[in-house]
């Protein structure tokens, strides 16, 4: 209210009026994913949209940008950008709408996406792709375009602009690709930037840098930003105003401090609570007997040999350099680090999936593994019951009835519905799939479970549920976990001891609370932020 009486009152740049998005269901009828929502963004304002996957936040962003899939049906009163209605939903001719979109997209409004690798065209150089918005919307000469491109790359804090222009996307790191995407979106100095989970695919350190960069660019150019994320910590750092969405509707909306400090709605409160923070609870349990080492690894080195051609020398990359550690029975041991630090490789060596390593690994119990992406690591064509039974078929001599009883027991333990055994993996949600993956790992009753980023692909509420489940199973069955993650908050919540890795080496290793409260190494401090 104060804003509007202010002499420098910000004008509204984007106004969405009762927007709905629906998709046809295969069985007939429609599924509404965005349900009559209205909101607005002022000039120079950063609006955050939070919510679980399936809450309709991405669909809202795509609708604003006019990028909804062909089969989506969009309705409402309008999406007004700077007073012009971008889609009058049927009243305006489709051709006309398309023309207006093409005129504004890439010039007045731009978008960056979640996965920077697939969002860039793999066969075109960075230069060609960066040049496109200039070719489409300006009349600059080739020389001028070149200069603008270099300055856009510099603005996105990318060095060696000249070299970058002739590079292909696959030659860049994840963080660099997202910077290229940002440079491309910013090249015509748009007034609105829509960012759809732009940091979800990046590691913690890169994530913070990208968030800072977006904030800096927005302030410098007086640009409005709609920033979509399931990561509440990121939104709190970046946004002026936050909007919480659930099931296609806006639950709560307000200034960032108010939402985080005094949430009104129960759902918002639940979301805040689910966002993992704070130390691991119940430290008295930490004293449980763990005299015995389950894993002892000494001087592990892993060298990846590149594929060797007929006339090419082998290229070598040392992924893990001289790493030693031990894990005690009943302990949750965390391994953290940025992507590419060798943590997953180390885990593979321990599990036996990787046999070419130097050093000694002694492992005293049955091992099972849970992977990051429950979408791709389970066979989508198989039924859950089949997947759960398979380890039993391979490793035990149980009869069919005994196996199925064990499957039912496991479904109950992992809080999956009883009829899940008859369903295919493709029909399950991400959280349910990860439960299936955990059930499949535990069904043979191993003592040691290796978890490779088991919650990274899930959104916050589901993340919290899966972590709860893992902790409960660990307590009940006295399991030992090795837990690999790049998410410090998750590690803090669940692990007893943590090892920090960088470039294949161990940076630091110690009790979780000690390490979080008094990190000894610079790198650990940086990682903790």
């Amino acid at each position, binding site marked *: 209210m104060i804003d509007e009486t202010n002499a420098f009152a910000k004008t509204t740049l984007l106004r969405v009026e009762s927007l709905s998005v629906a998709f046809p269901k295969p069985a007939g009828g429609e599924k509404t994913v965005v349900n009559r929502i209205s909101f607005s963004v002022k000039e120079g304002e950063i609006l955050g949209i939070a919510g679980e996957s399936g809450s309709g936040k991405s669909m809202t962003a795509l609708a604003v*940008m*006019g*990028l909804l899939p*062909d089969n989506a049906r969009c309705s409402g009163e309008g999406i007004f950008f700077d007073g012009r209605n971008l889609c009058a939903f049927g009243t305006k001719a489709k051709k006309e709408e398309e023309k207006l*979109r*093409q*005129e*504004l*997209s*890439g*010039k007045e409004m*731009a*978008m960056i*996406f979640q*996965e920077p690798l*697939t*969002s*860039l*065209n*793999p*066969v*075109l*150089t960075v230069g060609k792709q960066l040049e*496109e*918005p200039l070719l*489409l*919307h300006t009349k600059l000469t080739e020389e001028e375009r070149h200069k603008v491109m270099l300055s856009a790359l510099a603005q996105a804090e990318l060095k060696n602009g000249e070299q970058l222009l002739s590079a*292909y996307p*696959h030659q860049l790191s994840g963080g660099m690709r997202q910077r290229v*995407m940002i440079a*491309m*979106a910013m090249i015509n100095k748009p007034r609105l930037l829509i960012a759809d989970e732009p940091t979800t695919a990046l590691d913690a350190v890169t994530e913070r840098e990208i968030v800072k960069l977006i904030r800096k660019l927005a302030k410098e150019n007086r640009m409005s930003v709609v920033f979509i994320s399931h990561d509440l910590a990121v939104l709190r750092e970046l946004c002026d105003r936050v909007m919480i969405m659930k099931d296609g509707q806006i639950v709560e909306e307000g200034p960032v401090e108010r939402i985080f400090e005094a949430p009104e709605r129960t759902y918002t409160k639940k979301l805040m609570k689910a966002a993992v923070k704070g130390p691991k609870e119940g430290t008295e349990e930490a004293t449980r007997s763990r005299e015995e080492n389950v894993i002892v690894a000494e001087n592990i080195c892993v060298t990846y040999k590149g*594929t060797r*051609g*007929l*006339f*090419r020398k082998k290229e070598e990359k040392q992924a893990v350099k001289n790493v030693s550690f031990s894990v005690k029975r009943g302990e949750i041991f965390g391994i953290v680090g940025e992507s590419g630090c060798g943590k997953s490789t180390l885990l593979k060596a321990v599990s036996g999936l990787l046999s070419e390593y130097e050093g000694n690994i002694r492992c005293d119990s049955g091992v099972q593994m849970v992977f990051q992406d429950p979408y791709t690591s389970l066979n989508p064509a198989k039924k859950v019951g089949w997947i759960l039974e398979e380890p039993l078929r391979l490793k035990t001599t149980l009869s069919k009835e005994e196996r199925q009883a064990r499957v039912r027991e496991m479904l109950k333990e992992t809080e999956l519905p009883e009829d899940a055994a008859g369903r295919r993996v493709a029909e399950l949600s991400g959280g349910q799939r990860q439960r299936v993956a955990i059930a499949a790992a535990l069904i043979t009753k191993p003592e040691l479970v290796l978890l490779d980023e088991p919650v990274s692909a899930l959104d916050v509420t589901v993340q919290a549920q899966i972590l709860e489940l893992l902790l409960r199973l660990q307590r009940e069955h006295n399991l030992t976990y090795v837990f690999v993650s790049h998410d410090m908050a998750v590690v803090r919540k669940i692990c007893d001891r943590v090892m920090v890795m960088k470039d294949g080496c161990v940076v630091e290793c110690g009790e979780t609370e000690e390490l979080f409260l008094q990190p000894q190494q610079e790198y650990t401090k940086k990682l903790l932020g």
Partner: protein
Amino acid sequence: MNYFIKKTIALLATLLVAAFLTFLAFEVIPSDAALTKLGMDATEEEVEALREAMGLNRSLPVRYGDFLLGAVKGDFGDSVQYGIPVTRLLANRFGVTIGLALLSFVLIVGISVPVGILAARAKTKTGEGFFAFLTQIMMAVPPFFLGMLITLLFGIVLRWFAPGSYVAAGDDFFGFLRFMVFPAMAVAIPKIGMTVRFLQSSLKEQMQADYVRTAKSKGCTKRRVLWAHVLRNAMIPVVTFLTMVMAEILAGSIVIEQVFNLSGIGRLLAVSISGRDYPVVRAIVLYTTAVVVVLNYGADMLCRFLDPRIKEM
């Protein structure tokens, strides 16, 4: 350039191995060239004398060296059936087969690419059904029947060409084209059906890719999205497929050559096999392997140009 040199050396090595295997295959066949030449009535001494004269008694490596040296010089010995040098025999036939292959290939590429794009853009159920039906028919008709249909329709009913009136391209280029376009159609139609399908699914897959969304967010028109972004990505697998098609049609089609009464490589191969004319068979097999190896090499080069992600392998 380094990649180019490596690939070229690999190509030559592959050819050498292919030549050796071809040579070896005809050594293993339980048949005696001298005996074949003289017939079953020949006496032991006559056969032995001819074996000596033909050099069949020498050791295997020596004869391979001899064969290789001859192959490089273009000398594959004399045809048993025709009594003339194999090279001269083949030279006449190559013109027919290569001409037919090139013309077919032009038809395949020239028709498949635009039709494939149209098929990929078909949005309605009817449109999709039409292209699915069309390509299915094209692929399902057997080549000999297709050849006969074309001869009947264009040669006998419409009288656009006289069946069996092949003229060499060197003598009358337009006459050659006017005749050859019909057998080329018979060769091309099934391949067009396959290529359209392949390109259509490749395009559809690429149109779903994330980078298409990015291109639209930059304000690209539909036309620009297709030509500047999607097509090149979609062509990468199609190029490899087209290379295999090209290799296949360059090897000659026995059926089509028979139907249109063309004396090409395919028919010569059929005749030579039944006549146990091994020098000719050996030369044709070597030629076919060489075509496959060289075309694969070409496809590698082209894909590397199209797809920067292919690094030195």
